[in-house]
């Protein structure tokens, strides 16, 4: 049905030609689902744009053939391509809210497509658009017809994007990271929905994702891309169970899943024994009846509704829940960047909740409580070199200067695995993983006792996530820090944490030792979260002879 041979795509940039895709070939049969998997920069999205000829400015197809149902897509006129897009081949995108026109009613956006392809007239467009909304299982589609994207949740927006893509009954759907940025349960609903629709209509589909587990669950075949080339293709289960190419093997290893230890994520030869980890008995942080209420337009918003928990010294506590559950608010209050409405936070037995957030910066306990932020890029000052970034807290909070300061910065960099020559680079000259290391080095610069990690690996590729998670485990053992690890990814939390707190709607619905919460969840919400995690077809036994490290 779709046949790609030797496709090459290049981009003109200021630094000359960049080959984003280098001679890839694959076929897609009728009713088949192909997963294209790769990390950022592997050229997987560019491939899909090239198929539809919607490359960004500067991008051109250098060579190769793309044939769809006997039509040469490379040679087709722009007018023919417009008829093919949306009617024969459709596409859905990541970041669904941005993928919709922000100032046009969603119903009208669906009508635009229907009418463009002659599937509706002015008279019946509304009815057909509402039917398209009903097809993607949107409740009360007639009312949603008049909604603007900003009034809908991310999951809803993705359903609208799917409705637009499927409105004209295309034969092939290309999904480009359709669930990135969505909650795990929303991810499952969206993926299940699109799979059901694709099956019901007998369509073929291509799923482009960085998540090998997700691709393995939803696709028949996988193609693994690296640096613009396909390094391996095969039946999904086979690729996952017995990867042939070393890169695929590394990706499979780095995908967190039940039954693996932290070190199993790393390539086999990097698997040193994991340092022992035993939380102490003394209480470090005690939170009692913490409440945070924001003033809202339509009455107060109760972000956190009276939660209590205890963190022992040396313990690693995972705080999980979906967006809007109050986990970020809780972590911001604990790190004392935000004031609570009521409740106590005892740090080493002393209440720190009464110190206003803006004064806490001058408190001596500021250096004891530090944070690693979610977005490694946005949380670094773009005009500060890595060295300045790491020096910043030291200059503010201690009297280390001169040669001792330099020594300390280099010590921290070594500790975090950041090569010393990179210290004088600026954030834009560093890779994602290196920026994450800088962020961690800055957070531990003052030897904090309590480190709050707000989804530190959410923006990283899986192989880098694996390295960063292991780094965090090593640092914990070296420096005896206590972690509060905020995440939505239960598989990651399982690897790093001893204790898990599950939040929903501002309340703690369940907490307990990791193994207990993960293996025998008592609350239906926890069970839901666990069930929503992608389940690779083969739940392989640990692939090494090492026992699970925790």
């Amino acid at each position: 049905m779709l046949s790609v041979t030797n496709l090459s795509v290049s981009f003109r940039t200021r630094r000359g030609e960049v080959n984003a895709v280098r001679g890839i070939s694959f076929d897609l049969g009728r009713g088949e689902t192909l997963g294209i998997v790769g990390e950022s920069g592997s050229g997987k999205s560019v491939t899909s744009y090239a198929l539809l000829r919607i490359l960004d400015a500067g991008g051109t197809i250098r060579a190769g053939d793309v044939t769809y149902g006997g039509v040469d897509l490379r040679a087709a006129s722009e007018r023919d391509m417009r008829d093919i897009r949306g009617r024969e081949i459709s596409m859905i995108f990541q970041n669904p809210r941005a993928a919709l026109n922000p100032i046009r009613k969603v119903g009208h956006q669906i009508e635009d497509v229907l009418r463009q392809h002659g599937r509706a007239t002015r008279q019946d467009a509304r009815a057909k658009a509402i039917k398209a909304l009903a097809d993607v299982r949107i409740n009360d589609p007639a009312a949603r017809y008049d909604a603007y994207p900003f009034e809908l949740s991310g999951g809803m927006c993705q359903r609208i994007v799917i409705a637009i893509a499927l409105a004209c009954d295309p034969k092939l759907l290309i999904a480009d990271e359709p669930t990135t940025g969505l909650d795990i349960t929303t991810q499952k609903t969206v993926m299940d929905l699109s799979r059901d629709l694709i099956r019901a209509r007998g369509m073929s589909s291509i799923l482009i994702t960085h998540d090998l587990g997700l691709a393995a669950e939803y696709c028949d075949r996988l193609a693994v891309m690296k640096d613009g080339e396909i390094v391996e293709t095969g039946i999904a289960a086979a690729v996952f169970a017995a990867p042939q190419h070393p890169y695929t093997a590394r990706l499979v290893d780095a995908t967190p899943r039940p039954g693996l230890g932290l070190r199993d994520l790393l390539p086999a030869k990097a698997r040193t024994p994991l340092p022992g980890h035993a939380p102490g008995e003394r209480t470090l942080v005690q939170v009692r009846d913490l409440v945070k209420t924001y003033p809202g337009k339509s009455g107060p918003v109760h972000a956190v509704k009276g939660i209590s928990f205890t963190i022992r010294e040396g313990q690693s506590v995972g705080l999980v829940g979906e967006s809007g559950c109050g986990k970020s608010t809780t972590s911001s209050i604990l790190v004392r960047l935000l004031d609570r409405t009521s409740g106590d936070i005892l740090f080493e037995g002393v209440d720190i909740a009464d110190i206003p957030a803006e004064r806490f910066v001058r408190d001596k306990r500021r250096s004891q409580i530090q944070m690693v932020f979610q977005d490694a890029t946005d949380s670094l000052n773009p005009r500060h070199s890595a060295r300045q970034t790491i020096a910043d807290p030291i200059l503010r909070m201690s009297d280390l200067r001169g040669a001792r300061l330099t020594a300390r910065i280099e010590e921290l960099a070594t500790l975090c695995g950041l090569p010393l020559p990179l210290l004088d680079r600026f954030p834009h000259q560093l890779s994602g993983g290196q920026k994450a290391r800088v962020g961690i080095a800055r957070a531990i610069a003052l030897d904090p006792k309590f480190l709050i990690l707000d989804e530190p690996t959410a923006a990283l590729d899986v192989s880098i996530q694996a390295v960063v998670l292991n780094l965090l485990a090593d640092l914990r053992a070296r420096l005896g820090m206590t972690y509060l690890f905020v995440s939505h990814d239960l598989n990651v939390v399982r690897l790093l944490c001893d204790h898990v707190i599950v939040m929903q709607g501002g309340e703690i619905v369940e907490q307990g030792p990791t193994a207990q919460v993960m293996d025998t969840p008592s609350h239906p919400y926890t069970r839901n979260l666990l069930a929503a995690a992608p389940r690779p077809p083969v739940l392989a036994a640990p692939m090494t002879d090492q026992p699970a490290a925790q």
Partner: protein
Amino acid sequence: MTGRTRAIGMRLAQTVPVIIGVIVISFILTRALPGDPAVYFAGAMADEQSIQQVREALGLDKPLVTQFFLYVGDLAQGDLGRSISTGQPVLTDLAMRLPASLELTLSALVLSCLIAIPLGVLAAVRQGSWVDHLCRLLVTAGVSLPTFFTGIMLVYIFYYLLGWAPSPLGRLDFIYLEPPRVTGFFLIDSLLAGDPETFAAALRQLALPAITLALFTLAPIARMTRAAMLQALSSDYIRTARAAGLSRSKVLFGYGLRNALLPVVTTLGMVFSFVLGANVLVEKVFAWPGIGSYAVEALVASDYAAVQGFVLAMAFLFVTLNLIIDLSYALIDPRIGFDTK
């Protein structure tokens, strides 16, 4: 929609303190001006006593606070005072001259939008092409040439050398009669009176000053359109629209331009406010009987009532204009009115 109505109501309520502030500040500012109007109007031959008489007649001997309350009291009755240089009530003067300025500014802006927005769109769509370079050239020329220079240039070429334009003296050649006053805009009034000849004459007079101002305002509008359009075209929803096979015009105008218009409308409001105050030079070059030249003359003469009246009128105009911009913004962008607290 109730949230929206409330947002609009709030926006209207916000204009009240602005107006009050302008009244206070314009009063204080005019008193702070150097020069004594009593001396000026008593004439060169006046002695101490007659100056004192003039001062009392103008009410300038009273304490400032009393003067202020007298002024506010008059304002409340719609009395802006009498200009001591023209001898007319300030309100009458403004009613005569404001339409002249507005007609000039509005036609200049319409002209400039008609050129700048398509130019900006084209420059964004064909980035790096000759249209883009032309756009850049026009924009640079537009901002770097002062209006009095372009004005005089245009007069020299089109009136003196070519003789296409009428003499640059006011709104209407002296052989024509002013159309019966309805809106004060000659173009509209002459059409209302069914007098195409006067309309043509008024248009001829208007052409050069309007082009001068339009050249000046072209730059910010074209630049903003280009930048906003470039940003809109690189956003995700454009890719969605393209992937759905929408036609090129639908993608460009229905999806791209409508989003790009938001910042353009904001710029338009700023440009309009700015030009209304800054077209004094153009009015002087073309002997245009507008509000700008009126204000300058009043200022030179320390004509308190006229200056205050001018400042107040401008403030009202700015406030109304910003209101219109904000409200039209709310019409284009559905997110406004929900996001504001």
